[in-house]
């Protein structure tokens, strides 16, 4: 066998790799480990227990915040994915023209503008609307989350569309499929993994957001991350570890679901 160049044979590769893995995963392992601590302390481990998980589930505030997070993420990710799919179709199924790059930039604006700027802008903007309409519900949070979720949904969908042979849509049109039928029976089934990836990404990004949520939320509209932030300012108990561990479990589940569904489709 011919010896080929491999980055794995570079000197120090193993050391660097192991260091990186530790830096990335050790804190998480520690966090999850202490979630099972039976003691009140974060520093001394006294035995295995599910006590803090039970505490978290009994805490009505945690349950409320979690449900609110899921509700916002579900609605925001869905709306953002639909918008992103339409944007991706509009920007890929067209002859290139002057101004197309500008449109990419517009769609991806939330990735480039510092989040804190958007947060402050939305705070001021929504404050105005609250005065005019008197509405104070979850709509503001959902609208804000939808807005910053769009590029995260857009990127994988556009990547999928760009890799897709557009002759397939022409073939569908050639075989008497109206534009809607061509989309329904050819484009959509082939685009589905991209849409799903976009949705998952948008969902996780929404679930995770602190900065914009912190600024936009009204009283009693804590999401799980902002609730945890609030709690950590006072006393830290292993309950936070337990909630974080559950959060982690959920993201892992989302990723696994995505992989399983995606594999079937290819």
């Amino acid at each position, binding site marked *: 066998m011919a010896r080929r160049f491999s980055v794995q044979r570079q000197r120090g590769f193993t050391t660097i790799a192991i260091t990186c893995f530790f830096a990335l995963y050790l804190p998480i392992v520690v966090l999850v480990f202490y979630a099972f601590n039976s003691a009140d302390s974060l520093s001394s481990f006294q035995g295995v227990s599910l006590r803090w998980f039970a505490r978290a589930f009994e805490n009505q505030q945690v349950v409320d915040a979690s449900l609110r997070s899921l509700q916002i993420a579900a609605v925001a990710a869905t709306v953002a994915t639909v918008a992103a799919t339409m944007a991706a179709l509009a920007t890929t199924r067209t002859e290139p023209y002057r101004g197309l790059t500008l449109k990419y930039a517009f769609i991806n604006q939330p990735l480039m503008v510092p989040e804190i700027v958007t947060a402050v802008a939305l705070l001021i903007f929504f404050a105005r609307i609250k005065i005019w309409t008197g509405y104070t519900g979850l709509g503001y949070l959902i609208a804000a989350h939808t807005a910053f979720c769009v590029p995260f949904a857009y990127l994988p969908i556009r990547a999928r569309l760009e890799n897709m042979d557009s002759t397939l849509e*022409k073939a569908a049109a*050639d*075989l008497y499929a109206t534009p809607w039928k061509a989309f329904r029976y050819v484009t959509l089934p082939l685009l589905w993994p991209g849409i799903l990836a976009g949705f998952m990404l948008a969902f996780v990004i929404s679930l995770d957001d602190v900065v914009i949520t912190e600024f936009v939320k009204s009283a009693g509209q804590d999401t799980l991350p902002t609730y945890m932030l609030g709690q950590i300012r006072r006393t830290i108990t292993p309950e936070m570890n337990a909630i974080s561990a559950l959060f982690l479990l959920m993201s892992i589940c989302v990723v696994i679901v995505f992989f399983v569904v995606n594999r079937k489709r290819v």
Partner: protein
Amino acid sequence: MAESNAVEIRDVVKVFGFGEFAFSAVDHASISIRKNEFFTLLGPSGCGKTTLLRLIAGFEFPTSGEIILNGEDIAAMPPFKRPINTVFQSYALFPHMTVADNIGFGLTMLGRPKQEVRDRVAAMLKLVRMEKLADRRTSQISGGQQQRVALARALAPQPKVLLLDEPLSALDYKLRKDMQIELKRLQAETGITFIFVTHDQEEALTMSDRIAVMSAGKILQVDTPRAIYDAPTDRFVADFIGETNFLRGRIGSVSGGIAQVETPMAGRISATLPPDFVPDGEVTVVLRPEHACLWLPNDSAPCQTTGTLENIVYFGTDTHYHVRLQDGETQFMLREQNKPLQRQRFSVGDQVGIMFEENAARVLRN
């Protein structure tokens, strides 16, 4: 006789781009394609043949001109309303469907009853000899099989016209030969008008009823393969199809459709003047390599011109001779078929005479 025409293209122009970047991909093209005809658009890449096909399919719309199908101008009609189907160069089979679903797609979109779609799919699978692979994914079959599925899919809705965009270019040589025969068989069996696009002149000559040769968006000649090969009416056509000797010269005298052309490289040669040719000034005489033969000077045959034999290339079925003409620059090529147990008559360096019939050489405009 508009009734016998499947498609009529009337003065179609397609301009891409604007202002100084504008160029005509199709430039005032007019063709009448007859019913049940195997019609080929032939030309080098970039000549506009694929654009013309896309205009007929409806993927592009002409800048001006008419495309008549069944007495109706369809130039502005979207592709899904045209009773025309296409076999794409890349096949464009739907990867998320089975072979059977691909073939049934057109009929399903037309809203035909399920039983009819099933029967028709079965008939098409039989027609292209793919019955056993009906439930396979299109990614699980070979290139040649994909080609057959693409054909079956396009034929299933029984279109008035079938368009084929270089469908054989992705296949290897042997398979391409088989598919050429297969395509001719399908055309004869279905009676559907085929419009075939290719840059391969051999493919065009062997398969077509008629050929349109295109260059730079223009249609140069429309005729049967034999007429295109034997009697090209345009320099480009003569050059593009097969091999040709070009001899530039000036017409001396004309009598009975035969012109005496004075050439600097080969002296005076007699050649056929096309019927509507107005003789004036500089012309080119074109002659196929196999339409001339070699003589040794002492054979005392009536040669048209003479030269020095420079090169002999043996090709198995035939032998090519390269002759340097009198001006010492122009090379003239001849091709002779080899016969069994033939001994070599010429050797390099011989002074040779070149003989050809005056109706094999044709006068064309420069």
